[in-house]
């Protein structure tokens, strides 16, 4: 039996086990929407802006390890999705974005709502397809899902001209797929893994640095086993948070531009570094030369060869799936019994514990003004550290990363690579769809939330009971912080004037709004929002917070990890090992 291209699209999605499609209809995809109307394989979620469709699909994927699917119409629908696609690309999220296209005879004629989506999205997709013949449609979907989910994952765009959705052919979904030019590696080279084990055994100051690859690659358990087996300190990047439990004693906090004192110094002064699914990016190690000014041996485990030796030369590159490679490394260490020198390791821990002592995340509590850090801490307590937390971009994102101690992978969802404001709310929707019984909180700011505020309407339609924690400081906080530090307090365009009344706004969309202005009201408000009584409601918590709060520690651009700007109580503190002549070696 022959069916239309549009029906084939729905059948392909069914074959791939898709539960939700986030989208927005328009001329070029009307056939597909008609086919959606006639099926019950999956649910369609109607967003209010295409960017939100892609973010929601992205977070659906991040929070569930399934593939997110977004459906956009041609032209403006497709270009509205671009920011979402770039966001997913930078963070390596498996995503299928289906865009409508004008009919094949019209392509290139500047037709109504025509845009070259394959061209527009080319630099920000893992791969993309323009399907010109309905007979290629099913095979293209199979390939697209395969490419999106294997190797280093990423978004794949399928651009489908309208006539292709109308044309008919028989449907036969391929069972398997083989692409001769695409064979991502899985197993790491055993010889290299042996070398890594030997380096660890010879290490005096070993350190594990875990990135988003460990979360996406489901290597949390393996990383934890490695860290526990050898009892070595471990840091997670912004994207890696949750890979090792944030409350684990071996966890020294996040590292990088706003990393903890102990994580950044351990990164700087370790002698053997195991990098797992991390890419030494500028917000993490700052300047490579500074980072490498203390000699260290580096093992870099990553599925993407191009991530290796991109910013930092490494001693033992291991290309492979991080779960498999770290698993093999753990097994090898178990068999061989190789362990770092006990005495040296004890000295290293002593050093790290000294670095921990001053508590670089300490802030001054206030009885009058709500500190943003305090809200995040209380959120952690109220949700037992179990909520799925999404964020937008800016100071609140860093506070969320620093103060919400993520317990497990896929619990923390943020736009790390691209830094997309407006990500948080649609991401919370996607995460809640994937995890209907989880508590989902969106930590945001009054500026970011307004970049996709229209999704409050989507949340109403689909009864999505996320809790919005708005850290409202009436500033583009991170912009303001940089202007304070680097631009002589000239707050150019960083003040958010004419803010809406968020309580009324939430209510206008049919939700519950709360305005919290006193520190003593923070916890009660959170408890109420997360209470059983409101578990089915979206609650918008508008916390009026300190306008002058800054994120510390901070590694300024161009500085080394041991040249942090420290919080007030640590100003002037030396950023070196406390004693240079410990018996585990001269560090400086």
């Amino acid at each position, binding site marked *: 039996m022959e069916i239309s291209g549009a029906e084939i699209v729905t059948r392909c999605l069914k074959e791939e086990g898709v539960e939700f499609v986030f989208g927005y209809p328009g001329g070029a995809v009307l056939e597909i929407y008609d086919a959606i109307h006639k099926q019950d394989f999956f649910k369609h979620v109607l967003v209010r802006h295409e960017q939100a469709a892609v973010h929601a699909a992205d977070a659906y994927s991040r929070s569930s390890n399934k593939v997110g699917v977004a459906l956009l119409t041609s032209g403006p629908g497709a270009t509205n999705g671009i920011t979402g696609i770039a966001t997913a690309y930078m963070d390596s999220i498996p995503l299928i974005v289906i865009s409508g296209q004008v009919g094949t005879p019209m392509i290139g004629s500047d037709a109504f709502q025509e845009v070259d989506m394959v*061209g527009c999205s*080319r*630099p920000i997709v893992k791969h993309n397809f*323009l399907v010109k013949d309905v007979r290629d449609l099913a095979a293209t979907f199979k390939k697209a899902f395969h490419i999106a989910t294997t190797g280093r994952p990423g978004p794949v765009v399928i651009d489908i001209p309208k006539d292709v959705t109308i044309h008919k052919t028989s449907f036969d979904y391929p069972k398997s797929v083989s692409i*001769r*030019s*695409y064979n991502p590696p899985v197993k790491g080279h055993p010889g290299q893994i042996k070398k890594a084990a030997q380096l660890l055994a010879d290490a005096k100051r070993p350190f594990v640095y875990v990135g988003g690859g460990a979360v996406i690659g489901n290597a949390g358990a393996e990383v934890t086993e490695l860290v526990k087996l050898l009892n070595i300190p471990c840091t997670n990047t912004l994207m890696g948070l949750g890979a090792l439990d944030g409350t684990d004693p071996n966890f020294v906090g996040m590292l990088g531009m706003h990393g903890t004192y102990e994580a950044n110094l351990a990164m700087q002064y370790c002698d053997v570094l195991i990098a797992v699914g991390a890419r030494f990016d500028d917000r993490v190690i700052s300047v490579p030369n500074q980072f490498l000014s203390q000699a260290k041996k580096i093992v870099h485990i990553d599925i*993407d060869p*191009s991530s290796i030796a991109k910013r930092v030369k490494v001693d033992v590159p291991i290309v492979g799936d991080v779960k498999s490679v770290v698993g093999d490394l753990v097994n090898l260490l178990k068999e061989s019994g190789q362990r770092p020198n006990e005495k040296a390791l004890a000295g290293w821990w002593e050093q790290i514990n000294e670095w921990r002592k001053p508590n670089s995340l300490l802030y001054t509590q206030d009885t009058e003004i709500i500190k943003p850090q305090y809200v995040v801490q209380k959120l952690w307590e109220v949700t037992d550290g179990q909520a799925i937390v999404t964020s937008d971009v800016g100071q609140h994102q860093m506070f969320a990363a620093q103060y919400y101690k993520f317990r497990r992978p896929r619990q923390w969802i943020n736009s790390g690579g691209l830094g997309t404001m407006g990500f948080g709310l649609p991401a919370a929707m996607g995460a809640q769809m994937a995890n209907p019984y989880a508590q989902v909180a969106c930590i945001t700011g009054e500026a970011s939330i307004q970049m996709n505020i229209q999704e409050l309407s989507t949340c109403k339609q689909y009864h999505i009971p996320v809790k919005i924690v708005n850290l409202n400081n009436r500033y583009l906080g991170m912009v303001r912080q940089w202007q304070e530090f680097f631009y002589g307090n000239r707050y150019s365009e960083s003040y958010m004037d004419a803010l809406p009344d968020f309580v009324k706004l939430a209510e206008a969309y049919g939700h519950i709004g709360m305005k919290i202005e006193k520190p003593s009201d923070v916890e009660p408000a959170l408890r109420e929002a997360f209470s059983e009584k409101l578990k089915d409601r979206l609650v918008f918590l508008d916390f009026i917070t300190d306008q002058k709060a800054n994120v510390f520690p901070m590694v300024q651009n161009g500085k080394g990890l041991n040249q942090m700007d420290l919080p007030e109580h640590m100003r002037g503190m030396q950023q070196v090992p406390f004693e240079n002549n410990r018996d585990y070696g001269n560090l400086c």
Partner: protein
Amino acid sequence: MRHILSILIENEAGALSRVTGLFSARGYNIDSLTVQTTEDPTMSRMTIVTHGSDDIIEQITKQLNKLVEVVKVIDLNEADHIERELMLIKVRATGKERDEMKRMADIFRGRIIDVTEKSYTVELTGPGEKLDAFIKALDPATILETVRTGASGIGRGERILKI
């Protein structure tokens, strides 16, 4: 340093733009690029001449390999190789210049493939330097038009780029 990369790539619409897009997006240089299908019509062979430090060339190679349509990439500089480029050059050939031009083409083993009363079109193949040398040897005023293909390269001996 100058490198010459050989790429086997699926002969599909848009594949070339993925390669050139990669170079421009990441700030790499393309000095020349040639491409044509191979004996297998589903596969194209591309030769890119580029320059950069060893680190950059390593990144270029890795990034090229990441493109889904790229089957294989080799850096021909890693071993002995041959490269050839084709040039068609139209020169003024009048009066006593006419004989001189013919001699020059012979010296460089060029072939005159089109003749008018006033001009010759010379076909010349060889490594890029040879073509450069030919141009240099001519009086610039006599050159009417030049077309160069950019280099194509192949490994010497047993070194073969094939799937």
